[in-house]
Structures are given as structure tokens and as C-alpha cells.
């Protein structure tokens, strides 16, 4: 039990520090932090509509977090989740529009198309890393922008005639759920939450219960030792990126098939891919940790929308808090150092 507790300490301290600094910023700006955080909590669980919207926000956060975490376990930094998410979104919507099929085939096909597109987009940095030893961070950053501009071009010139968004997907490919909508006062909560939970289980299963997962983790721990033990480092690098990209593509597919039902030209990134890094880091790259971190960050994001309405505090305060939490998690060396000092002091 104490082992689990100590694992939780530094993320918890990071979250608390982040919230405290956020409160200080609110105070300095002349706002009431208690009212601010109160309105945020209201915006998360205030009534059934807010709960539904929070769950909807959490869905892509879980998947984006899984994507980053999965690659991290193999020692890879998939900063390209954003780009993979965008192409997954477009591919899923395209299948949703282009085909007329019964629901039982159409919906899974559209979801898989999103996963496949994300996987393909992540294959590029994986392959280049394995083949040419090119750092995956740079390649996937470059591919983020490539994805943004290419999908915008496709939406404008191929899928529509110079319009800013595609038509709506067919009902047979939609994840929208009249049931969830009715119990959450017509929020946009959709069946994607089931997909997200299945993916959490898949990630846990692959990493903890299969030989492939063992190899992926081994490569993450020590490439040379894995090579010496007869594992193919290159194969595992590519595989890890592809699975990671599939999760990212699914995150996009959830937005395309569930929340929005179409794909639109984007002026900039959705930000979900980058927030996925925060989720994975805070969740210590484990499946269950990702769920907890996604609950927190997705909740913060959803609750933030209520802050300007109730208290007039700009919702960006939550972006600041999330960024600070990443800082504090990344600087956990410092937190551990402080904690060690503190313990000594107690004795």
C-alpha cells in the first residue's frame, strides 16, 4: 500500500501546487479564487448537463493520454498525437459520409478508419526512427502541421466545394446516444466513453499480459539489452508508434463521430494532443493513471467554461493551471528533493 501511496505523492503535490499557483494568479488579478474554483466545480458536476459535457470532454483526453503514454513506455515521445488525432477525425468522418451501410458495420468501420489513419500517420515517425535514427519528436511536430494543412485542404477542395465544414455523417455511423442525452439534459455525451474504456483495457492488457507488451516495455527500459536478448528494437519502435497513433486516431474519431458529427477547417490545433502529454505524464504512463489524469484535466477543461459565466474569470486560468501541473510533474526531481528534506525535518 505504501508503494502505491509514494507513487501518488509527487503527482498529487504537482496538482496541488498547480491549483495553488492558479489561485494566487486569480487573487493577484482581483478575482476571488474560492468563487472561481467553486464555479469550476459547478461546471463539472453542478447538474446533469454539466456532468454529461464533462464526460464528453474526458473521452478524447483518455484516448490522447493513452496514445502518449503507450509510446512513452517504449521510450518514445509521441508529440504528434495532435496530428494523428486530426487525420483520424477526418478519416472517420469521411467513412461516415461516403458509405451507406447498416449500423452494425458502418459504425465500427468508421471508428476503425480513424484508428487506421492515426496509425498510418504515426507509422512515418516510427519508421524514420527505426530506419534512419531520426528523432521522433521533430518528425512528429512537423507532421502535426502537415496534417493540419492537408486535412484543411481536403475538407475545402475534395470533400466539399470550398466550404468550411463537411456535411453531417450518416446516422448509422454516429456515436450519439439518445439515452445518454436524455439522462444528462441533452448534453453531447456519447457512446465514445465505451470505446475509451475498452481502449484503456486494451492498453493494460497489451502491456501487462502479452509477450509483445513485455518486448515493448523492455525496449523502453534498455534498447541494447533488448537487442542482445534477441528482440527486434526497430520492429518494436514502429509497432509502439503505430499502436499509439491508433489511440490518437480514435480520439479524433470520437470527436468526429460523437461530439460534432462533421469535420471542419481548423485555424489551429485542437490542443487535445498536447493536453494528452499532460494526461500521460500525470498518469505516470499507466492505463489506470491515464484515466485518473484524464478525469482531472477533462473535468478542469469542461468546468473552466463555466467560470466566465458565473464569476467573470477568463477560462484560460485552467490552461495556466494545466501547464503549471506539467511543469511540476516534469520537475519531480525537485519535488522529491523537497519531500526528502521535509521528511528529514520531521524526524
Amino acid at each position, binding site marked *: 500500500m505504501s508503494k502505491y501511496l509514494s507513487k501518488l505523492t509527487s503527482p498529487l503535490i504537482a496538482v496541488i501546487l498547480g491549483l495553488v499557483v492558479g489561485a494566487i494568479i486569480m487573487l493577484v488579478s482581483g478575482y476571488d479564487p474560492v468563487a472561481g474554483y467553486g464555479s469550476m466545480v459547478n461546471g463539472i458536476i453542478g447538474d446533469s448537463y454539466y456532468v454529461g459535457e464533462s464526460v464528453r470532454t474526458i473521452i478524447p483526453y483518455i484516448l490522447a493520454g493513452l496514445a502518449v503514454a503507450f509510446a512513452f513506455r517504449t521510450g518514445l515521445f509521441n*508529440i504528434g498525437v495532435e496530428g494523428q488525432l486530426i487525420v483520424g477525425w477526418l478519416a472517420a468522418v469521411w467513412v461516415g459520409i461516403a458509405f451507406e451501410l447498416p449500423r452494425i458495420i458502418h459504425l465500427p468501420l468508421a471508428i476503425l478508419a480513424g484508428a487506421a489513419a492515426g496509425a498510418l500517420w504515426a507509422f512515418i515517425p516510427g519508421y524514420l526512427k527505426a530506419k534512419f535514427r531520426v528523432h521522433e*519528436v521533430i518528425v512528429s511536430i*512537423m*507532421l502535426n502541421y502537415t496534417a493540419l*494543412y492537408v486535412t484543411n485542404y481536403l475538407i475545402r477542395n475534395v470533400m466539399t466545394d470550398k466550404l468550411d465544414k463537411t456535411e453531417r455523417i450518416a446516422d448509422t455511423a454516429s456515436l450519439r446516444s439518445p439515452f445518454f442525452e436524455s439522462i444528462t439534459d441533452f448534453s453531447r455525451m456519447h457512446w465514445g466513453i465505451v470505446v475509451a474504456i475498452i481502449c484503456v483495457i486494451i492498453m493494460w492488457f497489451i502491456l501487462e499480459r502479452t509477450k509483445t507488451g513485455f518486448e515493448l516495455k523492455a525496449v523502453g527500459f534498455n534498447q541494447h539489452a533488448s537487442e542482445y536478448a534477441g528482440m527486434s528494437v526497430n520492429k518494436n519502435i514502429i509497432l509502439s508508434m503505430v499502436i499509439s497513433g491508433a489511440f490518437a486516431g480514435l480520439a479524433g474519431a470520437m470527436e468526429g463521430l460523437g461530439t460534432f458529427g462533421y469535420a471542419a477547417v481548423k485555424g489551429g490545433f485542437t490542443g487535445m494532443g*498536447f493536453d494528452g*502529454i499532460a494526461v500521460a505524464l500525470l498518469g505516470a504512463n499507466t492505463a489506470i493513471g491515464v484515466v485518473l489524469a484524464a478525469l482531472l484535466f477533462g473535468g478542469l477543461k469542461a468546468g473552466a467554461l463555466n467560470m466566465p459565466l458565473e464569476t467573470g474569470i477568463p477560462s484560460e486560468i485552467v490552461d495556466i493551471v494545466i501547464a*503549471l501541473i506539467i*511543469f511540476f510533474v516534469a520537475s519531480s526531481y525537485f519535488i522529491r528533493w523537497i519531500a526528502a528534506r521535509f521528511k528529514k525535518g520531521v524526524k
Partner: protein
Amino acid sequence: MDFYQVLQIIIPSMIALAAPLIFTSLGGVFSERAGVINIGLEGLMVIGAFTGIVFNLMFADVFGAWTPWLAVLAAMIAGLLFSILHAVACITFRADQTVSGVAINLLAVGLTMFLVKLIYDKGQTDRITETFPRIDVPLLSDIPFIGPIFFANGYYIVYIAILISFVVWYVLYKTPFGLRIRAVGEHPMAADTMGVNVTKIRYAAVLLSGAFGGIGGAIYATIFSNEFNHATINGQGFMAIAAMIFGKWHPIGAMGAALFFGLAQSLSIVGSSLPFFKDIPSVYLLIAPYVLTIIALTGFIGRADAPKASGQPYIKGKR
């Protein structure tokens, strides 16, 4: 429209678009040459753009035509101060440098938009009135043929950017400080053994990159967007990183790459009104800098290798 006229349109716009990229990528060169990856350049540009615009709006009445210059100076200081966060996290707290950079980017956008809403009570700032004037460089613009293309209808700050890249080259390759930066980025332990203070040099390099990034952001906002909102800096910082890599971590190379990326950007903007270029879908020009960088990294156009120690925190006494 003949070819010469086309050049007269494209070249000034190319150099102007390249200026913010040149400054920011030079910042990247400093930081990475000292062994600290700086993904946060995008965020530092955001800080610079915000400071530049806000300073401009507040003091335009006081300083008149000098406002944009002083705004750039203010942005430089703001960028420098903000980069202290990255330096402390990466160098002292041994944080993952890429993660810290991502946090810098998120924090910059969050903080500046929070302040914009606090100050202006809306999603963007007012528009600035004092921007850099377009000028013809005296004497040089009178050179036949070349003059009107390269030295007419431009901005002084743009030519300064190109000159600065030579200054940075001189600093990095001809001064003891530059040698120390490069040593610390290649083999910090060897440098430490020779009595170089690795921590100090890395701090200096990261702060320099912050200052340069701030300048780049301010120039971009002042010349091109004239206001600040959440999308003012949209990928410019990452494109500067691309320029730095494409230029193989060399100041002059980065400047050349920035000019080349500036050309691609200017074609994607003005190309639609020009013969020949209007037939190229702008998407190719938009993605060209990024795709070319990937190709450059894979070694098809001469291999680009990062400084050896980049990304690794230096822990004294650890082998």
C-alpha cells in the same frame, strides 16, 4: 506581368516573413548548441508578440515612431524573463526538456490570453497604430536590377535580422563564450573538466534563446497581424525550429533556411495573384517547410545531426 515584376513582389515579402523566423531560429541555435532542447520557442514567440503589441498600444502616444523599436526591446526582455522557467526546469530541476518546452507553450498561450481578457475584456487586443514603416534603403536601393528587388519596399528590422545572424556566427565560432557554448552542448563533462561552468553557460544560452524568441514574436505581430489574439503565433515557433534543423544548427544555415521558408510562406500568400504560381495548390507551399525538414533529417539532402549532448541534463560526477 513579367518575371522581374514577379520577383519585385515575392522577394520583399519573402525577406519580411523570414525576419521573425531568423531571430527565433537563432535563439534555437544558442539553446540547442548548449545542449538544451527548446520546443518552447513557440511559446516564447507568443510572449514576445503579446508584449510587443501591448507595449505598442500603451506607449504609442509617448514614443511615436520609435514605439515599435522599443516594443521589440520590451518583448526581448519579456522573452528572456519567461525563458528562465525553461532554464530552471531543464538545468536545475533536470526536467525532461521536451516536456518543459511543451509546458512553456501551453503556459504562454494561457497566460497571455488570460491577460488579454483581463486588460481588454475581449478575445483580442486593439489594433496597433505604430508599425514599422516600409522603407527604401538609401544608396543600396539605387543599384540597378538588384536594388529594387532586395532593398526597396522593405523593413530595417529585416535587414538587421540578416546582419545579426552573422553576429551570432561570429559569437559562436570566434569567441571563447561561443566555444564554451558548443563544448557544453557536445560534451559537458569534458567542458566541466576544463573548468567551464556548465550550468552557467547553459543558463546563458537558454536566456539568449528566450530573448531572441521574444524579438521574433514581436516582429511577427507588429508587421503582420497588428494585434494579438490566440492565433497570432500559429506555428511560427515550430517553423523556426524547423529552420534551425534544416540549417544544421548553424547560424548562417538557419538564416538561409528561414529565408527559404519565408519564400514558401510568401508564395502561399501572394502566389494566387501571380502567373505560374497560381496553378500550384497553396497546400504544397504550406507544408513544404515541414516536409523538407523531415527529408533533411532522414539524410537525403545531407545529414543533419543534433549536438551530441542535447536533451540530457548534466549531473556533476555522473558518468
